[in-house]
């Protein structure tokens, strides 16, 4: 049994990271090779009756083993197959060019099942025209819950028009709390509502930003490229898998800010609770000031009485994001599953 020092492990890990791209390019499995290398070093040290692997031991064995370069495998294609492949490649190039020209000529999304090419074009990042406030509420579906300690709240949406329409551009601002990982991509996507392609939501690289552990503000400009609703998600840094999302409620999204009805007092503590977070950090429930310590038990009590309780958080543009994050956490810890945020 060999005991590895931290520096020995780090030396081997650094080596593995360095050779990884070359191994992948050469058709080898880098994780398998790393495990093989680990075993090889242990064999060498066992043979030398060394029981503790140090950085020097690892460096010595690695130096003796030499470079881990592997030539990329040669393509196993016969001359006849090569001619066929070249013919097929030529056909694909011509077909792709025709399809791209066709999509490019269609500037308005149609009801066909193909995405118009314009949906994939970068959007302008000039916020000067994004002046119309859009009222909205959000929710987090059961199937897209955040990891423990994470959360996203939308504080403001402003568009280049008074509603949410296809072709409109929107400045989406909010506050995030990231606790489950060191870094994540925070992205805005559109959940399509078109017949036949519902659920497909391409993410554009410029419609996301990298965020780090902690709480902070974000602002992203996104384009509504096809009929649908926005959602904002945490994704793994390399892209792909979502780690929780807030979805805009489509029934409210197209409405101008001033027309959004506020909850009536009678609704409070039955199905909806109004939590206010002022710019100075003070918190209120139904207009009555409460301390941060009182908030969670109050929400928990309401939620215990009615599991369908929803919480509407009203905040100010100048509200301290950390304060808002605490309210957000209090909602979650109280068990409230549906809470939305409205910025003044």
């Amino acid at each position, binding site marked *: 049994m060999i005991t590895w020092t931290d520096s020995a492990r780090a030396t081997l890990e650094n080596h593995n990271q360095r050779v990884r791209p070359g*191994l992948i390019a050469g058709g080898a499995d880098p994780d398998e090779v790393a495990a093989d290398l680990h*075993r090889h070093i242990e064999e060498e040290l*066992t043979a030398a009756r060394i029981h503790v692997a140090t950085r020097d031991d690892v460096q010595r064995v690695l130096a003796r083993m030499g470079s881990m370069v592997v030539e990329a495998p040669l393509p196993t294609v016969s001359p006849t197959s090569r001619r066929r492949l070249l013919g097929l490649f030529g056909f694909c190039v011509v077909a792709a060019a025709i399809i791209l020209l066709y999509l490019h000529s269609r500037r308005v999304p149609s009801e066909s099942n193909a995405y118009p090419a314009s949906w994939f074009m970068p959007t302008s990042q000039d916020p000067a025209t994004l002046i119309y406030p859009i009222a909205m509420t959000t929710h987090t579906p059961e199937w897209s819950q955040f990891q423990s300690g994470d959360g996203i709240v939308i504080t403001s949406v402003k568009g280049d028009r008074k509603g949410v329409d296809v072709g409109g551009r929107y400045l989406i601002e909010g506050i995030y709390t990231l606790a489950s990982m060191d870094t994540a991509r925070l992205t805005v996507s559109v959940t399509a509502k078109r017949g036949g392609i519902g659920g497909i939501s391409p993410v554009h690289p410029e419609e996301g930003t990298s965020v780090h552990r902690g709480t902070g503000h974000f602002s992203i400009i996104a384009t509504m490229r096809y009929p649908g609703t926005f959602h904002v998600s945490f994704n793994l840094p390399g892209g792909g898998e979502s780690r929780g999302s807030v979805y805009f409620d489509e029934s409210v999204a197209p409405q101008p800010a001033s027309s959004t009805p506020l909850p009536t007092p009678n609704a409070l503590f039955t199905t909806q609770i109004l939590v206010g977070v002022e710019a100075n950090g003070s918190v209120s429930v139904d207009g009555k000031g409460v301390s941060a310590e009182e908030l969670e038990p109050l929400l928990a009590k309401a939620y215990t009485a009615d599991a369908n309780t929803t919480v509407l958080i009203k905040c100010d543009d100048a509200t301290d994001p950390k304060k808002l994050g605490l309210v957000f956490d209090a909602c979650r810890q109280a068990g409230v599953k549906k809470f939305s945020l409205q910025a003044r």
Partner: protein
Amino acid sequence: MDEPANDTFDNWTVQVRKGVLELCILNALEGRERYGYELVKTLAALPGFGVTEGTLYPLLSRLRAQGLVKTRLEESLEGPARKYYALTSAGRASVVPMNDYLADLMSACRELRQS
């Protein structure tokens, strides 16, 4: 040999070794399975090949990915668990024509030289 001839020879041997190394691995596994450390040491000691141990693990990984060799782990009392390599049926099916082809090449080369 003078310097340009040396360079030519060195470049040529590199190309030949690359082409034959995979066959050497398959040949080494044709009769029996071997565990990785032993296999790598054996191949690295082949005279004239000048292959480093570091080159062989990626090559073994690639052969496994190609389905020509298979592996299994076995605990060892003497050290770390041993990873044994063996030919798959595809590997066994490949090794015979590969050897035949190389033998034909060598034979043709020799015939040209004798004539």
